[in-house]
């Protein structure tokens, strides 16, 4: 948690990153930037999915619909915050010449998406019967 707070400071202070280690090959930095953008697209897709659940499943019960939409929106926000955090950590690791950080986040996100997908199937089937 303390590590995370320290990283949050880095998000806003580019000079601090520059002070550490040497500048890596710009192609590595660009690859890191593209990974960040890919995570951001994932986040945007989750947010779009949240809006879509709210808009295109109007026959669902209010609780289910709002719950699913909120879960997707929260996952999107979390994913985007994690994207910038991971980008900062990778950038710093590359400057120090250290190993790139490992993360449990992809596994957690896949599990969450799987659970939401199954919930969606169940909810749509039950919703149609009722």
């Amino acid at each position, binding site marked *: 948690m303390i590590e995370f707070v320290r990283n949050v400071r880095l998000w806003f202070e*580019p000079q601090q990153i520059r002070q550490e280690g040497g500048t890596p090959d710009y192609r590595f930095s660009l690859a890191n930037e593209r990974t960040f953008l890919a995570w951001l697209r994932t986040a945007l897709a989750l*947010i779009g999915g949240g809006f879509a659940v*709210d808009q295109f499943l109007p026959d669902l019960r209010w609780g289910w619909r709002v719950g699913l939409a909120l879960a997707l*929106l*929260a996952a999107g926000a979390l994913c985007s915050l994690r994207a910038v955090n991971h980008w900062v950590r990778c950038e710093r690791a590359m400057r120090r010449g250290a190993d790139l950080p490992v993360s449990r986040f992809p596994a957690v996100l896949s599990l969450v998406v799987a659970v939401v997908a199954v919930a969606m199937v169940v909810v749509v089937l039950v919703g149609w019967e009722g």
Partner: protein
Amino acid sequence: MSAGPVAQPVRDPGLQPERTRLAWRRTTLSGTVAAVLAMRTALHGGVSVAGGIVCALCCGLWLGFLALAHRRISALTASGEPSAFAPRQATATVLVTVALAVCGVALVL
């Protein structure tokens, strides 16, 4: 084979700047889809003052996202070695995305 001290910027055979530029384009497209869905949600079921305000807010967020992407794309297309992606830019992009999600929560509830 002795190159001068100021060598002509070599075109990167891996096309890294171009790929990064296209990644930004894809991301703006995803952002556009999310923003359009947000505006649809805001204006669904008649125009109200609150809905209009949230719609304008989403529109502004989308424009902000476009502006950020445009700045970065211009930096990438400039000749020579592209400048590094600043943490502040990354944070700004992420904050716009989170703000869109917050608008979504406000709209859904």
